[in-house]
């Protein structure tokens, strides 16, 4: 522990608010970019360029009546969205966003929790977050919700394997599970996207599926399932599920930046968070770009792609990286 607890607390409070704000404006960015790609304007009524739209949405959702189906199991029904949102937010704690600064003789780390197994912790938190989607769909006592959560379950379990295997190459190359050390290693040598390009591609594709974004948005395929696991949710509980989804997108983009694109490294080191932020925005926009361009997969296509294409590639990538690492040593 290099910093007193109150600095960590202050940093957490700041970061969680920044993250929530970023989440709100990710929805704005998504609607705006998607609209422009479809020759529309997107939100442009609330404030200049529709910039107040996320706030208007929040006020609307908080004020909505939060009813629930009579047959639903109340406690899990209420707990599920909170669980998903909380784990999504917590995952950001281990992501480094700067080199650290010294202010008034006190050292401030560029990360909230410098956990030795940060990467595994992120996957573990993601795994718990899936419970929120499954339990929420089950507790709603609705067929659409149950089907949606079953799909979520199957999809996220299949793609989490590829996701974890795709980062194995990075872990082997940096010989660490600590994200700060992975970033430091990239600063010393080069961004891992160059030696680990296959790993980056598999991780990116599996990540799109893991956050159930289009073209892998089968859990909430609106043409077949109304809205998937959150069909019976409304108001801010629905908002929490959406929040979890968007925070997951941000966390995954942050993970891509951290693992493959040198994290906070940039032309001028003290401005670490800025470079981190710029890279993050590029990846979030890429997620939106993919949504605007690709149609949704069929369910058997999704499963076939996950198990027969992505998983072998990720495994081979990890094996080849391991062999090369041993050979070079």
């Amino acid at each position, binding site marked *: 522990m290099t910093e007193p607890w109150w600095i960590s607390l202050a940093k957490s409070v700041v970061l969680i608010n920044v993250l929530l704000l970023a989440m709100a404006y990710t929805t704005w960015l998504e609607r705006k970019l998607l609209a422009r*790609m479809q020759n529309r*304007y997107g939100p442009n009524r609330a404030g200049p360029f529709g910039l107040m739209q996320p706030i208007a949405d929040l006020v609307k959702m908080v004020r909505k009546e939060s009813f629930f189906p009579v047959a639903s199991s109340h406690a899990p029904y209420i707990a599920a969205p909170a669980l998903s949102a909380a784990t999504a937010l917590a995952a950001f704690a281990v992501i480094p966003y700067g080199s650290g600064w010294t202010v008034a003789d006190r050292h401030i780390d560029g990360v909230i929790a410098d956990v030795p197994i940060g990467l595994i912790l992120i996957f573990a938190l993601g795994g718990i977050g899936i419970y929120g989607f499954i339990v929420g769909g089950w507790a709603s006592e609705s067929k659409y919700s149950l089907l949606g959560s079953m799909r979520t379950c199957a999809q996220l379990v299949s793609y989490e394997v590829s996701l974890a295997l795709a980062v194995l190459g990075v872990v082997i190359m940096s010989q660490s599970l600590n994200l700060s050390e992975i970033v430091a290693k990239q600063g010393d040598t080069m961004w891992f996207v160059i030696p680990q390009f296959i790993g980056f591609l598999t991780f990116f594709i599996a990540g799109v599926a893991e956050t159930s974004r289009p073209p892998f948005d089968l859990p909430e395929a609106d043409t077949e399932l109304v809205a998937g696991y959150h069909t019976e949710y409304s108001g801010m509980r629905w908002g929490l599920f959406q929040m979890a989804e968007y925070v997951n997108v941000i966390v995954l983009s942050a993970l891509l930046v951290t693992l493959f694109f040198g994290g906070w490294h940039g032309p001028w080191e003290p401005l670490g968070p800025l470079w981190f932020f710029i890279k993050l925005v590029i990846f979030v926009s890429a997620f939106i*770009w993919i949504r*605007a361009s690709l149609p949704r997969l069929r369910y058997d296509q999704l499963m076939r792609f996950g198990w027969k294409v992505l998983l072998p590639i990720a495994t081979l990538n990890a094996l080849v990286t391991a062999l090369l690492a041993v050979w070079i040593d």
Partner: protein
Amino acid sequence: MPQPADTLKGFALTFRQMFKKPITQQYPEYKRAVYPRFRGRHRLHRHENGLEKCIGCSLCAAACPADCIRVVPAENTATNRVSPGERYARIYEINLSRCIFCGYCELACPFDAITLGNEFELSEYSRDDLIYTKDMLLEPPVKRVPVASSELYDTPIPYYRSHS
């Protein structure tokens, strides 16, 4: 079969669209001219001498499939002459929350007293406000709606539209 080249072409297409001007028409600021035969809110008409064209025959109410017109006729007298015929519409109400704007009333009317105008911004906060009385229907519309020139469309304008 996966076709990566075509997929990338698709990505290029969506990217290019970002720099084009959106084709959305910003509605409240920009009002597109309505079609010359557009069927909007009803209007009742008067003769040049100020008498109402409506003679209270209730044919419009009979023709109305939504049953939204209510006509209560009364006899014209020498001291109170409202319309040229024997009778006039003492009460003429159209419930616009039920109207489907089919235009059967203007077809049914033997004196072209009722026609469908061009206004379509009819929102109200209360359902009661959507019941238009005879006085409201006789008034010229408050908001002028731009109408496209009939020259643009190769379509005949019905007699009752052009002569009211």
